[in-house]
């Protein structure tokens, strides 16, 4: 892909914007449309675009497979431990209200953390799936 100058330049311009938009959707999720799932997909599409233009090997260097696997697990752990944190603070499982000083602050913090967990897991699982299919046939 060395000679595809337009693709390379355009994607270099686009990728930061995609990531930024992904982060916007991620952290905007509790106020407007958006959330962890969509953000994760958008975020991973930036890396997938990078892999398509610059090659799989370079992309895998940015995010190695074992890091992805760890992140995929980490997201679920974040989600579940927010629920457990509520348990320890005297509420029911996933009762966000007890997480903050006020009911509203708690709800806000809880949903933010949970969506963060979702985002991390979705992004890394999307990438794992992409690398698994794109890497077929390579040793």
């Amino acid at each position, binding site marked *: 892909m060395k000679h595809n100058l337009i693709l390379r330049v355009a994607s270099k311009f686009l990728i930061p914007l995609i990531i930024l938009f992904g982060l916007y959707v991620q952290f905007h999720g509790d106020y407007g449309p958006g959330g962890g799932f969509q953000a994760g997909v958008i975020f991973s599409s930036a890396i997938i675009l990078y892999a398509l233009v610059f090659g799989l090997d370079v992309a895998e260097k940015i995010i190695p497979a074992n890091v992805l696997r760890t992140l995929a697990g980490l997201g*679920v752990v974040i989600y*579940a431990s927010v*629920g457990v944190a509520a*348990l320890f603070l005297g509420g029911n*499982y996933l*009762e966000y209200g007890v997480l903050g000083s006020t009911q509203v602050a708690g709800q806000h913090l809880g949903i933010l953390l949970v969506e963060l967990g979702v985002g991390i897991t979705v992004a890394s699982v999307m990438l794992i799936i992409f690398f698994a299919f794109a890497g077929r046939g390579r040793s």
Partner: protein
Amino acid sequence: MDHISLLLVVIPLIAAPIVAILPNGRIPWALTLLVTAVCAALAGVQLWSIVHEGVISYELGGWAPPWGIEYRIDAVNAFVALIVAGIAAITLPYALLSVEKEIPKHQISLFYCAFLLCLCGLLGITQTGDIFNVFVFLEVSSLSSYALISLGKKRQALTSAYQYLIMGTIGATFFLIGVGLLYSQTGTLNMADLAERLPAVFEHKTVHTGFAFIVIGIALKLALFPLHLWLPNAYTYAPTVITIFLAATATKVAVYLMLRVLFTVFPNGFALGTPADELFIILGIAGILIASVYAIYQMDIKRLLAYSSVAQVGYMALGIGFASAMGVTATILHLFNHALMKGALFMAVGAIIYRIGACRMENIHGLGRQMPWTFAAIIIGGLSLIGVPGTAGFISKWYLILAALEQENWIAVAVILIGSLLAVVYVGKIIEALYFKPALETNLTVKEAPLLLLLPTWVLALANIYFGLNTELTVGIAESAAKMLGAVAK
């Protein structure tokens, strides 16, 4: 105390991703063992507190039902949860060696991760009181079991996992369509709330359609005869540990779900007004006879036992079809007892596979003399499967026959007896090959299975005898569970 109902689901859920991150080796196994042991203990405490203190209702996220998700535990699901968690805890010590032999090293931590997710899903189905939540957990357990089955050593494992995937997805989709139809009529997903609102709309065609979709969907998961086609392949080619675990738990949870839908969600004997109960009796009878005959002709022992499982599901369906207190008691009893006998049998067969790498009839000639302890466990499990007095299998068949006599359904009585005779034939076939056939030369040097495989096998084998002699616990709980489901004596 109420938090237990939730911890049973959340502990495996949190442990699963952690196990996936751990390095391959024995650490993932150790953590999984710990988790299953904790879950089994919690399930025991939960059942105890249900019996002594009554129904537990847990509001997830502090949202009151029927709007929020509610975990509602009574004698029925506490008992099933104990079966699932208990079998998982007994399977895990067995898993160490068996998994090391059958699963490639780089997949071991992912294997245990999927196992924990499967456990989480199965426990979730039993714990939750929200019918949409049931669907979610159904998918959690199913997706992980597809992955687990596909890890089998032979290439056929992939096709059988795919077959199960297709059938299982159709089943789950039917269930979801049915739930959607009920929701459109009542506007609620909480089971207890559905039970209150449904009687007002019982005449609506939509409710009848929804009922049909849900029953067929669960019947697919249950492997009720003609919908059982995925089961023999899945059980035959799955890794041994998964066969043990799924055979002893997955269909049991589906039976529980069926009982829940037929008796709790649709109250006041709604099912009796539909062809459902006749259908269960007819399909149960057909399943017992046809699957047992199929079992006799199998050359692979795992496959033979898988067909026998389909037949055993037939017995449970028969009990559901009677729709009487006695019938439901028999079904719940058989649910427990069948988990014990199939668990013990698949474990013993797994020990043979561990030693010689195969379990086809022609490979195992004379192994009974080389592996006396494994062989004895197979005999106990086999006797229990037949229903010989003094074993757990006898108790459940006894209650089933009582239920059939109560309704003067002579055909069912005859079928239960014929089914037991057919079981004599197929169990006899295994024993003949293991003990009475002249030993193969290659089998003369085979040693007894390692202690780590034998101990769990014998725990289950002895449980078969214990619960065959002391029925206070099982029958007591099954009767109170039947009462809880509102099945009335006829």
